[in-house]
């Protein structure tokens, strides 16, 4: 199993969700997060004074899939979340040791 974490632009969430559900992914978790990468933050004005927003709002989307589907899912996310401009985000893939469906107690990939 692989855990795929994608940090994406908030307004791209719907596109990514539709791409994944269209490909048969049945579950995912999202959270509102803040962060910065190489684009750093940006500056804004409030009442005539300049202030820096260091941590920009992003969405973090987590999906766990079987090993053989990981590449497809990463490709789908990358395609759907891309605008081509700075700050599009990142996708991280990591191996996952186990999974349990709490209701039934199923283990491993059958719990996904």
């Amino acid at each position, binding site marked *: 199993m692989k855990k795929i974490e994608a940090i994406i632009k908030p307004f791209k969430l719907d596109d990514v969700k539709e791409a994944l559900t269209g490909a048969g992914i049945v579950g995912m978790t999202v959270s509102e997060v803040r962060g910065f990468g190489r684009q750093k933050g940006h500056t804004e004005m409030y*009442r*005539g*004074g300049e202030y820096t927003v260091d941590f920009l709002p992003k969405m973090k989307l987590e999906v766990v899939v079987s090993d053989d589907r990981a590449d497809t899912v990463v490709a789908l996310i990358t395609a759907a979340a891309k605008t081509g401009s700075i700050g599009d985000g990142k996708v991280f893939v990591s191996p996952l040791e186990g999974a349990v469906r709490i209701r039934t107690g199923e283990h491993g990939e059958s719990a996904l």
Partner: protein
Amino acid sequence: MTGFASLGSTLRRKVIVALVVGVLLAAGSWVFAQDKPAAPPAAATAAAPSPPPSKPDPAGTATGGIADVTAKTAGKPTLEEVADFAGHNRVSINLMWTLLTGFLVMFMQAGFALVETGFTRAKNVAHTMMMNFMIYAIGMTGYWICGFALQMGGLGALSTMGGTGLLDSEFTLSLFGKDFGLFGMKGFFLAGSTYDVAVFALFLFQMVFMDTAATIPTGAMAERWKFSSFVVFGFFLSMLTYPIFANWVWGGGWLSQLGKNFGLGHGHVDFAGSSVVHMVGGVTALAGAMVLWPRIGKYNKDGSANPIPGHNIPMGVLGCFILAFGWFGFNPGSTLAGGDLRISVIAVNTMLASASGAIFSMFYMWGKYGKPDPSMMVNGMLAGLVAITAPCGFVSSFWAFVIGAVSGVLVCWAAVFIETVMRIDDPVGAIAVHGVNGAWGVLSLGLFSDGTYGDGFNGVEGTVRGLFYGGPSQFVAQVIGTVTCFGFIFGASWVFFKVYDAVFGMRVSREVELEGLDVPEMGVHGYPEIQGPATLVHAMGASGVRAPTVPAMAPERGR
């Protein structure tokens, strides 16, 4: 299974709606049926000479007539009875107008609460809101105890409300052979001979004005002011500083007599309170914000300012709209007479100045800083309203628009100046909006009053004319009033705040300020679901939270 259940519940809902509609229709037709037989009993009232036919009057043209004039012989009033009735009606209209517009002004408290809370941070909402809420109750109590008496106790006869001269006791000082009225001495607790309908109407109207001034400093001093200190301040302003300055301008005091005594126009004229209400509030806010020092994190060590954005723009904008609505009570109500038809000019001038204030602040911020700043557009509209408050009764619509336009730019410039040059932290811009534009308002009256209104104002014959309409001495009176307002209110408030700070401490501790004032000061979060239950958030510092204020501010004071 679920599909069937939801279908079932939809059907059930439809049946219930149909039943409710049916019952309502049946009840309605029964009520109409009951209405019809009500006509015949008219014949029973045989006493009246010509019983009016009891038929409905949907157009409203026949309702009210000679039969409604109170007379010994119904339907045949004598001339004296008609005149008596007309006089009573005139005063009724004026009293009703004064009360209704007073109710509108009362609702401005809600506007202030929303603007001030929206433009400050979420961790302090309960504290900021409750200052705005409690000032209504505290101010009213203080004003009832002695504020009203000091302000209006020497007013003399109030011509628009029946001419009762019950408020007839002014403390005066004789200088250069002239009388200088300093404060009134009648109407404490509204007791004794001031137990009178006209006096009570005046009390209500003046009370809500005082409360407007009293709630202004809570914005400039928000996010760091001890609630206990604020409570004492509420009594101080409502019982002393506001009433005394208001007496000088509106209660027959010496500023209003500058015309009669020294030939300076009509004396210091402030139609609805640019100086009496707004400048008093704004200057008190200035003194308070100076004594309190800036919020932690507002200034860097090099003295440069950090913006601290407010947490809820919609709240601030809604508050501004409520204030703009309440202003239709503030300005037109200040005629104290619904029969004074100048109210239409006043109302239009008021709205025009609010529009130009908002528009010009929008363009100023857009042009200078790249984007039309929402909080500054709100401040711009309020600045226009504050500025037109004094001259609203005396200027043409053109000058009303110009006065608002100037204030729209002035408020943006002043807010930045106060923040970056004077290094005074005013989270909501109260000093720029109310202090600076309050001064601009009374001065603009001395410039643009066009001589179409105000005959006999402050006991001076002729209409009110500003500098550009042949009345230079009126401008002098306005300058004297403005300088006096600043000197007296700043001096008295600064001394009060300084002494209170030295004896009891006005500022919350550093820990409380960083955590947010809501739980340490008020015991509850404004937004518990967002900030977490009080038990969780507060557990860490619970023991040290109520420690006495220590001057932990040194590094942030930055000046």
